[in-house]
């Protein structure tokens, strides 16, 4: 009977059933088998209204969607181009930095490729970068930057990990600090590659057009305070994540609708709806998975898994290697939010037993997921890019190969050098 149910659920999953329904079903079936009152599923779900950090997720997501709807991406590209465009590989580096900053705010939901790729791909082609390089760059940059504050995946990981009361604890602030160096490493490696393959400069090296830079800065005067307030507020430790989120959302709302007037009332309603549909989809999964986690812990599932894995894997290193491989596959199949909510409750207790710092684990997890976005054959961003640029998926896959290898090297470094994640935290 149990196997029949498992098979049915797997079939439903393969046919594309909503994940929250699958998780809810597993939680209810498990609790029912244990003889529990199923109202506990809703008691756990209701804890969504009892987590102070959670408010950061709708607020940052809203800010990201509003920024994406406004002219901010265009101004961001113009400003970074005026400052970095003079370098060899400058425009490619502009693309990397602009995408990373944009993804940090929008949380890697494919918005980056659609909003930034549309601007950057033609610009790269015009600057005589190869077609394959340009496609690969904008596709793989679509998930770059999700290790930087205030990316929602970092917040979500902290929230899920906090359910386990680990020592040392996983605060949102700790995750924000931990992601900084690993994220920079990824950008540096990609920048080095870009400089290596870049076409010779047209403008001549070493010349910043200061007047254009000034004009671009003036054009972006309402956006410039944002990264300063957000990153400064978070990395200085002066404000909690939820406070920065509140200020950011209110500021972006006022600037885009009242000051710049780039978003009118109907578009505001549409943007709120779009953003909250994503938030709702994520939080619904988080809510039902709280019930599942309750059942896991009640049945000491993590301990049993650890015993089973411990019988086959004896070292931390071997465990990390297996984790990398497993997460790579997972990242192709699941988006980052559901992967975090579903897998972290299973992986975290095991990793703790192997003596892995929970904050380091979070960065490893998310860095792997970032790679999964464009891992062939089924990474989500490959399809978004194919759709957006009207190319066959295979062509996009081929274009992404060098970028994949570079970022894979970065992920390995992040995995096996915990210092990168932890030096700013502990």
């Amino acid at each position: 009977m149990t196997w029949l149910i498992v098979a049915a659920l797997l079939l439903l999953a393969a046919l594309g059933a909503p994940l929250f329904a699958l998780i809810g079903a597993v939680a209810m079936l498990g609790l029912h088998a244990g003889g529990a009152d199923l109202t506990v599923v809703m008691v756990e779900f209701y804890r969504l209204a009892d987590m102070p950090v959670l408010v950061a997720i709708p607020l940052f997501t809203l800010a990201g969607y509003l920024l994406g709807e406004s002219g901010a991406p265009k101004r961001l590209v113009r400003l970074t181009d005026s400052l970095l465009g003079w370098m060899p590989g400058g425009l490619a580096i502009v693309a990397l930095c602009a995408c990373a900053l944009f993804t940090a705010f929008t949380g890697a939901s494919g918005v980056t490729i659609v909003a930034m790729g549309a601007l950057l791909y033609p610009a790269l082609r015009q600057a005589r970068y190869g077609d394959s390089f340009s496609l690969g760059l904008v596709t793989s940059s679509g998930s770059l930057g999700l290790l930087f504050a205030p990316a929602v995946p970092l917040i979500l990981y902290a929230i899920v990990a906090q359910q386990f009361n680990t020592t040392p604890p996983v605060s949102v602030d700790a995750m924000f600090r931990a992601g900084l160096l690993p994220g920079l490493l990824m950008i540096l490696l990609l920048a080095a590659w870009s400089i290596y393959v870049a076409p010779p400069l047209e403008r001549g090296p070493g010349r910043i057009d200061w007047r254009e830079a000034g004009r671009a800065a003036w054009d972006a005067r309402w956006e410039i305070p944002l990264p300063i307030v957000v990153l400064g507020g978070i990395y200085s430790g002066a404000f909690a994540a939820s406070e920065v989120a509140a200020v950011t959302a209110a500021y972006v709302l006022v600037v885009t609708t009242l000051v710049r007037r780039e978003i009118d009332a109907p578009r505001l309603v549409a943007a709120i709806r779009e953003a909250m549909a994503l938030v709702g989809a994520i939080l619904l999964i988080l809510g039902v998975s709280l019930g599942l986690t309750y059942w896991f812990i009640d049945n000491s599932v993590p301990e049993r898994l650890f015993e089973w894995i411990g019988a086959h894997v004896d070292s931390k290193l071997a465990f990390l290697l297996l984790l990398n491989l497993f997460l790579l596959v997972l990242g192709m199949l699941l988006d980052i939010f559901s992967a975090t909510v579903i897998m972290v409750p299973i992986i975290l207790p095991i990793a703790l037993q192997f003596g892995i710092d929970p904050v380091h684990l979070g960065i490893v997890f998310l860095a792997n997921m970032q790679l999964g976005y464009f891992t062939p054959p089924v990474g989500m961003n490959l399809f978004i890019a194919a759709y957006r640029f009207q190319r066959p998926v295979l062509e996009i896959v081929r274009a992404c190969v060098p970028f994949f290898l570079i970022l894979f090297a970065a992920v390995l470094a992040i995995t096996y050098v915990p210092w990168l994640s932890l030096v700013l935290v502990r």
Partner: protein
Amino acid sequence: MDAAPGDRARSTPLPLRWLHAAETALLVAAVLALVGLSAAQIVARTLFDGGWAWVDPLTRALVLWTAMLGALAAARDDRHINLDALTRLLRGTPLRFARFVTFAFAAGVSALLAWYGWQLVLLDRESGTPAFGFVQAWHVELILPVGFGLLALRFLVRAFVRPQPPSP
């Protein structure tokens, strides 16, 4: 005023359009209140060292409400998170079949969750658990049976609806 892509104006019956408009209006109001309240709370806290005790629990309740209303919007636009590696390859009748089975399943699970949400409401109404101010916990919890109930109905309806053309 409703800019929902899932809402093809004339094909949707009037009462349903009213429901959609009400959902969107409530969602927008909740989000704007969420932004306004949490920003005001910070201003009050930093400038006057004050703030209001009821704001924090209210914003947390608003997070739950926006999540449920957002989930309803996601269902209307077919944007609930799923594994789509296989369904991407399906067309025509197999796709209609897959959607029927999975959405009917989602409707069933949602209905169960709505039922247990209702049990929670009854439980907390009986015990009179307070939430904040004059608001009781069961007032906040009402969104659970209502939200999951509507979600169940919506999935049931969508199980029969023709899929929209693919988009990223």
